């Protein structure tokens, strides 16, 4: 029940973010293709971050990188924005893998039963 509600909230959140993303991207397009790319990388990173969170595996570092990337984009420092967003996206992917691959309990061998 609760999971369902959570899922729908998440879905809503994703739609919302994707929506603003496109709107922002449209604004940015008028400026430069690099700005568009930066926004796309940020959107990708945020999706990856949310994927990691969906398996309780988000890192504290990822959201911070995304915020920094957004700030860089705002200031017109597109290269920095792209670099940071890519880093965040990579983290999101690894963090998701980390969570998803441990769905099954594994007891470390140093604990003797």
């Amino acid at each position, binding site marked *: 029940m*609760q999971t369902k509600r959570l899922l729908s909230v998440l879905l809503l959140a994703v739609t919302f973010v994707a929506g603003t993303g496109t709107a922002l991207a449209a604004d940015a397009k008028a400026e430069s293709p690099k700005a568009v790319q930066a926004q796309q990388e940020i959107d990708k990173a945020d999706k990856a971050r949310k994927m990691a*969170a969906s398996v*309780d*595996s*988000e*890192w*504290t*570092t990822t*959201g911070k990188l995304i915020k920094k990337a957004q700030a860089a984009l705002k200031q017109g420092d597109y290269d920095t924005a792209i670099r940071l967003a890519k*880093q965040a996206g*990579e*983290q999101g992917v*690894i*963090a998701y*893998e*980390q*969570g998803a*691959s*441990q769905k*099954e*309990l*594994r*007891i*470390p*061998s*140093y*604990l*003797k*039963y």
Partner: protein
Amino acid sequence: MSVGQVIERICSEKRHIMKKTLIKMGALFLAGGVTLAAQATTPEEDRAAFTSHYKFRFTDVPVEEYANGAYAIDKIGRENWEAIEEFPPYEPFIDEGQEMWETPFANGKTYKDCFPDGPGVKGQYPRWDKKQGMVITLPLAINQCREANGEKALKYKKGPIVPLLAYMAFESRGQITNVVIPEDDPRAMEAYEAGKRFYFTRRGQLNFSCATCHVQNTGLKVRTEVLSMSVGHTTHWPVYRSKWGTAGTLHRRFSGCNNNIRAKALQAQGEQYRNLEYFLTYLSNGLALNGPGARK
């Protein structure tokens, strides 16, 4: 290399090197590491395995001492702690909590109406609630009581819930931890298993599980702190922490331990942390409650 050194090293590395480390760590962990596929074990077997692991490491430390956390195994830390316990920093919280306990709600009812055996009821939590189908912890029960009486729920990590918990913990001193996993509801065992899985799941950029620090590396130092054993982790909450400059709850500590490995903390009193508390408290079955406590 100690855990502290590992953390220190990772912290001090430049960003581009860190990225490489990260990818390596990812690869390492995808390769599986040194783990055994889970065999089905009973909670009693889990508790025995943890306890014998620590007994083997700290041969001359009696298990009852585990309730004192790192101070069971850290001589210098213990001296400071014993000095602090002479004028316990949590005392004002107990007094404030008693006042809260005795003050009626707007509807004239009191906490006593919700906790007829209270205030010393900490030994009854966490417990499986068949009707609600979930683990009920003491902080959650307190908020359910408040809400049933038209009062606002309190925050779970710090603030006014802490003195109330401190008073109830103080009144519960000496009760023996006795978490029960009822057999008439398979969901209770599922909750325990979920908590156990959480405990052994590697998280965060540092890719540590609770067990990495509190089982594998117990006794080693992280910066200035000696890593404690998980048996005894739940007996003494809430805790006045010098680092916090105030007292906080067990779930605040969970958040801190998650953040330290750069894993985003989950919601205090959310399902994951409650199940974790259920598992973790089971490990302390047989140990006397000694809250509230003081820690570095």
